């Protein structure tokens, strides 16, 4: 992401230091990750020390300091999904993709993350990929869902 775009986003938030998290959310959303250079630029413009920005970028789970895959897989580990067997679904996805939550596979195809409650408890266990919700998952049908993504 170029500095021009970053400066634009910062300007949209009136260049206020308190908008730091909102600015980073926009950069994350457009760029799918936060490169070190972007953090440095934001720090410069908002007059916030880099170590504080780095803390924020790593403290909040919405941010990623490494590139994400084409398909971001979010598995709901909310309590309702948990009692319906979400842990087994997660293990199946880990086996099939070879990655653990927080990781991206080597082809940059899948990124895996857990989320706490997508609020679709009636469909639990639930997995969300690229905004699409897949419900009523089990060890047996999860593989079919993943196969449909290339």
């Amino acid at each position: 992401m170029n500095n021009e775009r970053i400066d634009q986003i910062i300007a949209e938030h009136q260049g206020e230091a308190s908008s730091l998290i909102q600015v980073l959310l926009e950069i994350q959303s457009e760029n799918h990750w936060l490169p070190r250079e972007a953090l440095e630029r934001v720090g410069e413009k908002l007059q916030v020390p880099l170590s504080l920005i780095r803390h924020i970028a790593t403290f909040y789970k919405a941010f990623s300091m490494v590139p994400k895959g084409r398909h971001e897989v979010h598995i709901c580990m909310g309590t309702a999904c948990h009692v319906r067997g979400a842990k087994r679904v997660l293990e199946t996805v880990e086996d099939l993709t070879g990655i653990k939550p927080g990781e991206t596979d080597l082809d940059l195809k899948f990124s895996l993350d857990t989320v706490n409650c997508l609020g679709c408890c009636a469909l639990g266990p639930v997995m969300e990929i690229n905004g699409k919700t897949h419900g009523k998952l089990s060890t047996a049908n999860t593989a079919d869902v993943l196969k449909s993504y290339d």
Partner: protein
Amino acid sequence: MNDILLQIDGKEVQAKKGMTVLEAARRAGIDIPTLCYHEKLEPFGGCRICIVEAESGGSTKLVVSCVYPVEENLVVRTRSEKADRIRKTLLELLLAHAPDSPQLKELAGVYGADRDRFEKEASFCIHCGLCVRYCAEVKKLHAVGFVDRGTRKEISFIPEIASTECKNCMECFPLCPTSYLQAAFVLTEALAFSGTPSEE
């Protein structure tokens, strides 16, 4: 008047409004153990070792003295069965990280903490935050900061700043109770500093 009268360990202590119980105790020469407290820094309230019993209005509760403001007629007990028991557990949790820290070993002796109660942890940082806070509040350089949260939280140097500032300063080094800070610096220097000054 701004003067507040409270009692600590049976002793009458005079304090000013806005002071913390720990500050009042220190002024009166009463010892309360601390790990994350430093006079030059804003109170952090991270290690909780300075926890004491405080009684007011007929009820007693445990408060963390480095952040708890003094109150008129507050009755403070720095040692009690409960406070001691909690301090012991807190020390044991820390000893799982840094069993050989002189400061921890000394406190462990006082409170009977068992260094082997918990399984050993990989990192010997105890998160007192003294290094990060000193660099931010006193030196205003922000050469070292925290990253991540919870059990994944760590201290981390910013190589670009540390490589130019730290060798001339090193004021935070003696503050570290476990020497993890020095180890982290050496590692960062070896892996992330960008070459000798003549090459820059």
